[in-house]
């Protein structure tokens, strides 16, 4: 009998959520962040810090914050400061200040109710909890653009000024705003913009050499010795560099190439495995977005994938999708949601770039919405959704 031999030692080290102990080529930015927040180790109550981190997709913004959060929390515990690091992806919470704050409150009170009060009340509740527990929070607002897009200046104002207005009380809430660039900030009014204080850390895109270092680091902890050749790492670094220096793409590609090697039982990850992997890859940013969708949004998207799978059509109407969605719901033993609800799902999926919509005015029966699946192969999408829905 043939024994199964995997190239992996620990593939979890390639997971999108894994935070490595070492961040190659981000040491300077990490030190700067620690410096910005060093007051927390000495007199945490005196001030609240605000930092903006910018950088393109895959430049290490999220992992930098998470590494910093873990390190800062550990340092704070040594000085007896009750510090919590909370990382929220604003896009996952639809850019809603209320949902972002609710998530933060549930760190302290997991069953805190979701309805019946406003974002301001929730912020007051959060500050009350922090006062009572003598705790401090560094709240990272990842994909900050979506919060600004939905809530505008008001949200930032509430997060910064409201706690400043509390007389003689400690400053409890510090912010790290993570975004691709500063364009969204320019949309805020001047006074709100000034509250962010503009401590800005910009992450440049990685060079090919830097990507190679990052990949080598991950190879050493995720793969068995000699399972990944230098040529393989070099090819992945090259491909990721052409994808705008996207390290996330590089790591995803490394993992997929490893999977191909295991499927073929090669015992090593060859450049050919990388070529196989790259042809079928969905950038992880899409995967992350798929994972954050709610059940019926996934079911709706699964219906779209099924319509386009195996057909040569470029678009479908919402009515057609609705029919397939009803069948999908039956399959998953779910009650189909209403047309209005589906319309909202369509808007959301368009907003995050998975689907594209266009209003057709050419027909004789008035306007109808045409739905496109522009970037993701339908069979890949169906596969990813099926896996996600089975979890």
């Amino acid at each position, binding site marked *: 009998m043939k024994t199964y031999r995997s190239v992996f030692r620990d593939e979890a080290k390639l997971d999108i959520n894994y935070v490595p102990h070492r961040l190659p080529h981000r040491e300077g930015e990490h030190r700067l962040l620690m410096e910005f927040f060093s007051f927390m180790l000495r007199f945490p109550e005196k001030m609240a810090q605000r930092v903006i981190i910018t950088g393109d997709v895959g430049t290490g913004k999220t992992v930098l914050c998470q590494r910093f959060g873990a390190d800062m929390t550990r340092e704070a515990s040594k000085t007896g400061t009750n510090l919590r690091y909370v990382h929220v992806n604003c896009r996952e919470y639809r850019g809603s200040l209320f949902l972002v704050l609710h998530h933060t409150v549930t760190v302290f*009170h*997991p*069953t*805190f*109710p979701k*309805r*019946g*009060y406003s974002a301001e*009340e929730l912020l*007051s*509740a959060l500050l*009350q*909890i922090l006062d009572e527990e003598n705790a401090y929070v560094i709240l990272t607002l990842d994909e900050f653009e979506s919060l600004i897009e939905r809530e505008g200046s008001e949200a930032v104002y509430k997060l910064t000024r409201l706690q400043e207005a509390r007389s003689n009380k400690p400053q409890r809430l510090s912010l790290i705003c993570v975004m691709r660039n500063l364009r969204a900030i320019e949309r805020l009014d001047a006074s709100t913009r000034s509250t962010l204080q503009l401590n800005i850390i910009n992450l440049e895109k990685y060079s090919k050499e830097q990507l190679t270092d990052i990949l080598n680091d991950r190879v050493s902890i995720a793969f068995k010795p000699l399972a990944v050749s230098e040529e393989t790492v070099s090819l992945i670094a090259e491909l990721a560099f052409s994808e705008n220096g996207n390290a996330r793409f590089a790591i995803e590609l490394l993992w997929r190439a490893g999977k191909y090697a295991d499927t073929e039982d090669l015992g090593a990850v060859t450049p050919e495995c990388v070529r196989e992997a790259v042809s079928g890859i969905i950038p992880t940013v899409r995967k992350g977005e798929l994972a954050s969708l709610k059940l019926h949004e996934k079911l709706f998207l699964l219906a779209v994938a099924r319509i386009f799978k195996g057909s040569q059509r470029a678009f479908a109407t919402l009515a057609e999708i609705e029919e397939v969605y009803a069948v999908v719901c039956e399959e998953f033993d779910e009650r189909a949601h209403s047309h209005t609800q589906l319309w909202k799902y369509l808007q959301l999926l368009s907003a995050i770039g998975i689907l594209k919509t266009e209003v057709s005015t050419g027909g004789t029966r008035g306007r109808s919405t045409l739905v496109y699946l522009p970037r993701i192969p339908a069979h890949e999408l169906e596969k990813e959704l099926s896996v996600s829905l089975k979890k």
Partner: protein
Amino acid sequence: MQIEEVFCSKIRMKILKLIERLGELNVSEIARRLSINYETTSRHLKILEEESIIQHKVFGRIRLYRFNERSPKAKAVQNLIGTWEQANKQ
């Protein structure tokens, strides 16, 4: 109130089991999860609070109910529920 009066209510026992399982909850959530109306839930919570078995914490308009950490009665009830559930599993 005598012990038999407190524990003779099926709803009160369900509320206590729910709070034991989830830690803390507001009135609406308790009512929703047990499929009883708001007023009934409030009434039973009031009885349990008067007996110092549970307590509430106020956050603006929100009241979260949980076991009264300082009450020996609360500890006894939590032990009873825990032991009972454990025995049922065996």
